[in-house]
């Protein structure tokens, strides 16, 4: 019970101090809109909004979670307020779950911004909501843990941003968000399959357009595996680098 009080208050604190701040809210709105507009402007033929939706949802979650978690954790480390959390009688796994839960929620909320915009432009009937929600949750979890991995690896806030982009931009092209993995050059495909977003985007494609190319159960198992491994790696890194 005592741990849950701490968990809830850490989540509320992060929500209030970081995630509900106007710049972060606008990031959640502007980013998906900008991506969608880019396709509208670039395309010579009418754009199928439903075709774009899996990619835009994935990107909104990826950019939202990794940016915010990596930056806020690095900021808290710099200001030493993160020490206050490490000094509290909370199990480290539990503490890191509390710290990441805010970013996961933020990522999930971000995911629904493009869904909302899409619903204004096209019919969203026939969407398979259960696998879609599962995918949104697991993409948010794995992206958040990627943000945590980045936060543990850097010391300065600007490094967090630069390092995040090092991972994020290649993922846009490698994870089948807008370019199907099957059409990528053969030598790049193994890279696609070691990135969790590939599996998340595939579930979204299945849920929205029924055109995923991997088995749904395989996608979920692999994403859960990525989430577990990334969490374990992050905790190991936190212990190694932050508890000297």
């Amino acid at each position, binding site marked *: *019970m*005592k*741990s849950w*009080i*701490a968990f*809830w*208050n*850490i989540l509320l*604190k992060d929500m*209030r*101090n970081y995630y509900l701040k106007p710049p972060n809210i606008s990031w959640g709105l502007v980013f998906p809109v900008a991506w969608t507009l880019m396709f509208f402007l670039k395309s010579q033929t009418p754009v199928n909004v439903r075709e774009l939706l899996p990619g835009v949802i994935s990107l909104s979650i990826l950019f939202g979670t990794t940016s915010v978690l990596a930056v806020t954790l690095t900021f808290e480390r710099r*200001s*030493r*307020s993160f*020490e*206050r*959390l*490490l*000094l*509290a*009688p*909370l*199990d480290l796994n539990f503490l890191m779950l509390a710290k990441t839960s805010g970013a996961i929620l933020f990522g999930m909320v971000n995911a629904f911004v493009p869904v909302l915009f899409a619903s204004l432009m096209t019919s969203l009937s026939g969407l398979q909501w259960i696998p879609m929600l599962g995918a949104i949750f697991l993409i948010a979890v794995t992206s958040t843990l990627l943000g945590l991995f980045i936060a543990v690896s850097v010391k300065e806030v600007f490094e967090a941003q630069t390092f995040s982009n090092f991972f994020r931009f290649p993922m846009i092209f490698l994870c089948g968000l807008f370019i199907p993995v099957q059409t990528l050059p053969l030598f790049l495909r193994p890279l696609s399959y070691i990135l969790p977003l590939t599996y998340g985007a595939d579930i979204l494609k299945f849920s929205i357009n029924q055109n995923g190319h991997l088995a749904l159960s395989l996608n979920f198992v692999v994403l859960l595996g990525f989430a577990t491994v990334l969490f374990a790696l992050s905790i190991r890194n936190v212990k190694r680098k932050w*508890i*000297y």
Partner: protein
Amino acid sequence: MNIVEVDRLTKKYGDLTAVDQVSFSVHEGEIFGFLGPNGAGKTTTINVLTGLARPTSGTAKVSRFDCAVEIKKAQQIMGIVPDESNLYEEFDGFENLCFCAALYGMKKNEREKKAKDLLEQFGLAEAGKKPFRAYSRGMKRKLTIAAGIIHDPRILFLDEPTTGIDVASARQIRQMIQNLNRSGTTIFLTTHYIEEAERLCDRIAFIVGGKIVRVGPLDELMREVQQENVLQLAFAEGISNLKSSLQQEFPDVVVEVSGNQAIRLRSSRPLNLTPLMRFFEERNLPVYEARIMRPSLEEVFVKITGIELERMKQEKEGKGKQ
């Protein structure tokens, strides 16, 4: 009973040995001073005791919990006030205290009541609604101390609590430390203000270059360096002409005239006051004040560690301003 027990603790960072085979204990209910220059290993020792660092070898225990194994149990009973105020800039004083209490699992009404009481007690009730970033340095320190004790810890680690703050706030903080100790909280204090340690601490450890060079009660440390007995006497009228007769009467005593109305007597043996008083009485010279001069902790520190105190202060305060 010991609340802290450190046994042959060593902490290495690569090739650098920050703490080297350190052993000491802190008795429950005392104010324990941990003194040393910059880089001596004070903060590293605190970090190991509080769970921010792991020992390379040796053990550190708080309330019998091994800090390397059961740190979460030990953290339940400890409060920590780091050398820099690390509360949340966006929160006001009340919210900061409530958040810190929540980290220890305190329920909403309980933590709000405690936060209000502490703000009142620390003279911050007015500032309770201001964001932390708008606080003065002294106010920040006070609120950080309040956050450290919100869960009623049995031991409070205070790292340089008065560095870089104004005289009035420092005085208030010292008073708070004494009050806390009177109410039963053990205090583990690191400071570079030797006079502060002298005023507050029951026992002191000097740490230099990662090693403890001396640990013991204040009186004991002072006796150790006291090589001679010094008595200072003050008179209502001039006594400079008495020096030679006094020296003749007491050949074992070195007489120094200090100003026109005071003398200082030095002896390797304890000074017997009765013949001295008789000497002045016979000459109709009333003694207004007699003071046994003891070495200050500052002298003890310099003698034991060989470190110039002024240099240590400058280093610390320079760091505090950064």
